[in-house]
């Protein structure tokens, strides 16, 4: 059975909750309008449709839109080699979804990662705690309103953590500029720096050696 037919069977079973299967470049995507039935849908997909392998669960932060979170489940059938993508939306006020660890045990760590990075809780999860950041880290790093450099936090027992320095660092190139020389920081003089710091490859008169008769001086460009 092709994945499209399996998706159609899913639609027949769950009716209006499942959208029409969309196809893009050979991949079938199906959207679930109500996140509360995600566990039943996944259980049906595993037992009846043969999607016995959960490839990934991931989350998307639609910052500025409502609902804010989109959860994407990638399913795969080891028997029939068909893949299916299941999407569902969760609003920010709720920020909670039913867990699918009852269907696939591997979802445990995927959901822990989503909880760690986005802050979406999973109802019924056996062990919901942070997996990448340390226990007690107060922020959710992969949200769109979290800066890449990080916010200052206290890491217990080791040191305080400051946000990583980004601006004005020595290895930050600027956009534009027709070649790498002008994009490189060496060619750039910061406005706040005193004038004598401007060194580098800007056109500076290199002192020419005095001409000695009888010796050919070559200019190296």
């Amino acid at each position, binding site marked *: 059975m092709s994945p499209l037919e399996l998706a159609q069977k899913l639609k027949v079973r769950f009716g209006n909750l499942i959208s029409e299967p969309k196809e893009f470049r050979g991949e079938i995507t199906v959207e679930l309008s109500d996140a509360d039935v995600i566990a039943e849908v996944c259980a049906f997909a595993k037992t009846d449709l043969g999607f016995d392998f959960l490839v990934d669960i991931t989350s998307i932060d639609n910052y500025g839109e409502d609902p804010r979170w989109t959860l994407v489940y990638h399913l795969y059938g080891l028997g029939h080699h068909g893949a299916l993508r299941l999407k569902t939306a969760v609003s920010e006020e709720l920020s909670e979804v039913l867990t699918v660890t009852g269907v696939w045990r591997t979802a445990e760590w995927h959901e822990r990662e989503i909880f760690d990075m986005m802050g979406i809780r999973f109802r019924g999860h056996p062990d919901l705690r942070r997996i*990448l*950041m*340390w226990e007690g880290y107060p*922020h959710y*790093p992969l949200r769109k309103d*979290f*800066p*890449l*450099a*990080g*916010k200052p936090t206290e*890491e217990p*027992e*080791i*040191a305080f*953590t400051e*946000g*990583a*320095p*980004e601006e004005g*660092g020595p290895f930050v190139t600027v956009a534009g500029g027709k070649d790498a020389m002008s994009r490189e920081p060496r060619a750039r003089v910061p406005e706040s720096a005193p004038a004598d710091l401007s060194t580098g490859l800007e056109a500076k008169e290199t002192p020419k050696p005095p001409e000695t008769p009888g010796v050919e001086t070559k200019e190296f460009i």
Partner: protein
Amino acid sequence: MQTKTDVGYNSKVEGGVVHTRLDAAANWCRKNSLWPMPMGLACCAIELMAVGASRFDISRFGSEVMRFSPRQSDVMIVAGTVTYKMALAVKRIYDQMAEPKWVIAMGACASTGGMYRSYAVLQGVDHILPVDVYVAGCPPRPEALLDALIKLQGKVAKEPFLTTQKQVA
């Protein structure tokens, strides 16, 4: 031929006796047997393994064994990205090493955080450990790490013997 060295030894005159300073003798022993504690955290650890392998043999320089026990090692080579979560463990292992001990920060990530200016990466292991030698590179060539080891040997040779080693800041 008379040469001025730490070890003044003329076998015709002195026979089997070597006159030296305690500092020089002890430091000679220390620098020629720096056993590394490999804190191999990321890709630099692969180059560290290459340094330990036969082509760029690190045991030529006395680092015969990579002691994975901090109690038995002299120099900690921090090879790789130090995340905040791992920094706790790195500090603990460093504290467990016996004096005298040194640290080589290998690679860009251990020296300054490298290309990872992010919320999870410690911007340089020198925030938590006193580093003696920094090695640039991503990853550094094995020869670069050996050069760092030679520089560290030079540093060890100059240390006064009866000094208190690294203080906790």
